[in-house]
């Protein structure tokens, strides 16, 4: 604890410099006082806001802000031939980009490993939860199906992009309408109606709740960008609107009760706030 004596004596050491040089010690001192650097309590979430339909050129879109983390997502629908093995199923292609503009950690160029891993997690969560049955995207078996490109971009990175991106993608899908399409077998072309549009038949509306474990004991809900690299363990619980567990992901050492504790904390959050997230989109 040479650190403590050093900071104790030099009073002019700026808090910001201390945060930069000793991020772990900085966070430890906050946690000791039962508060986090941004003023939240350990289990407190940041404010969430969801706007839909802000991109008029997309079939559906959503802008999600979770504290300072901002993710925008647009859904673009195209028509393609289905896979030979699955002639009645369309395609759902979720993807997220972490461009250099969203934070100093990210560099311009091809998608970083972090972005690819995040995309894969989002895709597997949306597929495993069965948000949209792919058979609903069929226009004509073996000839024409819808391809939905669900593209999300992080505009401002302040931690917990997974939760924000999942909400953005599901809200954008909820906002998506597809024109009524008919396939003409004689001409082999698909015609879309100009007037009739239908919303997607979504089967469940998942919300992810991410927690981090700091120092082996303290569970922090909704970790911010400063806290994320200091966490030993990250836990994501995905629940549907009824509170049923859809998926649980965890990486790093966790005790047996930590997982169940996070599941109940996620359910509590769902009870108090979660149901409102998609409710206004009805």
């Amino acid at each position, binding site marked *: 604890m040479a650190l403590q004596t050093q900071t104790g004596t030099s009073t002019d050491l700026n808090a910001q410099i201390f945060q930069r040089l000793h991020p772990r010690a900085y966070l430890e001192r906050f946690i000791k006082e039962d508060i986090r650097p941004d003023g939240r309590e350990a289990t407190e979430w940041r404010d969430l806001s969801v706007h839909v339909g802000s991109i008029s050129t997309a079939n559906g879109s959503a802008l999600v802000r979770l504290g300072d983390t901002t993710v925008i997502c647009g859904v673009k629908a195209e028509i393609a031939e289905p896979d030979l093995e699955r002639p009645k199923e369309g395609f759902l292609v979720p993807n997220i980009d972490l461009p250099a503009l969203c934070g100093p950690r990210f560099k311009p160029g091809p998608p970083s490993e972090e972005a690819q891993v995040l995309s894969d997690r989002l895709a597997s969560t949306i597929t495993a939860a069965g948000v949209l049955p792919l058979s609903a995207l069929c226009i004509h078996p073996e000839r024409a199906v819808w391809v939905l490109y669900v593209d999300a971009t992080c505009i401002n990175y302040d931690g917990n992009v997974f939760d924000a991106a999942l909400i953005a993608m599901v809200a954008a899908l909820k906002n998506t309408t597809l024109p009524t399409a008919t396939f003409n077998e004689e001409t082999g072309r698909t015609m879309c109606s100009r007037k009739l549009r239908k919303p997607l038949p979504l089967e469940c509306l998942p919300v992810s709740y991410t927690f981090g474990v700091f120092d082996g004991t303290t569970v922090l809900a909704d970790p911010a960008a400063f806290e994320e690299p200091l966490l030993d363990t990250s836990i994501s619980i995905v629940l549907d609107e009824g509170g049923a*567990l859809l998926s649980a992901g965890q990486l790093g050492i966790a005790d047996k009760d930590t997982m169940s504790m996070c599941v109940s904390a996620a359910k509590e959050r769902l009870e108090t706030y979660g149901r409102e997230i998609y409710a206004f989109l009805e």
Partner: protein
Amino acid sequence: MSFTRPDGRGNEDKRPLHIIYERLDRVDGSARFGFGDTKALASVSGPIEVRLAAEQPSKATFDVTVRPLSSLPGTESKALATSLRGLLSPSLILSRNPRTLLQLVVQSLTPSPIESYPPSLAAACINASSLALLNAGSIPMTGVVCAAGVALFRSTTEEDIPALVLDPSESESREAVGCGCFAFLFRTEIAGSQPLPTNDTPGARLVWTNWHVKDGTSDDGELARAQALGLAGAETIWRAIKQSVPQMDNLPPPPLPSRSTAGELGIITQSDEVSDQDMNDAKIEI
């Protein structure tokens, strides 16, 4: 539990385990692990020289690559590699070799669907990595990570008791309502000098969960039960790994506690020339 598995296994039975120390020439450690036909090969090199850009002043850089059996590694391979790095890191003391590189390459030996690695294959990759790290012996470790896949089936006709099965085969994990992989770090706290009883496992801590359920129920216990079954599976794998370690260096095998258990676990020893010959055959096959 009235649920029956297609291959006639009991719900908590694994397929036969295969543990083979490959002894690839150009790497520091290598091993193959398989649950029946679901196999993975891992190799470890390190500490070796690190690229200047990836060099870390206080610890070794840990680089993990996962390769599918066919085609190029996609995002799913990258995701598994990132998970492997995260879940194996607590078992390694990387700070002992700063400014070096520890390179782990995992080659799947089983065809996998394009979108994802099934839980049993992911578990095989994890176990093969642990074996390769043990085989290399060049990186100090705090424990051994073992993993097992679990799948969930719901019966529609019977009374609603969901059946959890251990080590699902690929077709089982495709049909299951839910499936996932659980990895545990087995670590003995160095408290006393008393050696562990032979067949007892040290304390296990969860390091990785990857659980997905298609039709969710708000049953809290389901995840905990799946986790407990995963732990039971990982414990038997830990015992099999422990039994395999003395035979790692091609020494005459020590008398096993009971031959029948070794046969049951399907450990392939390479104690004599005949099995060495088999090994070479296997290498050509790959």
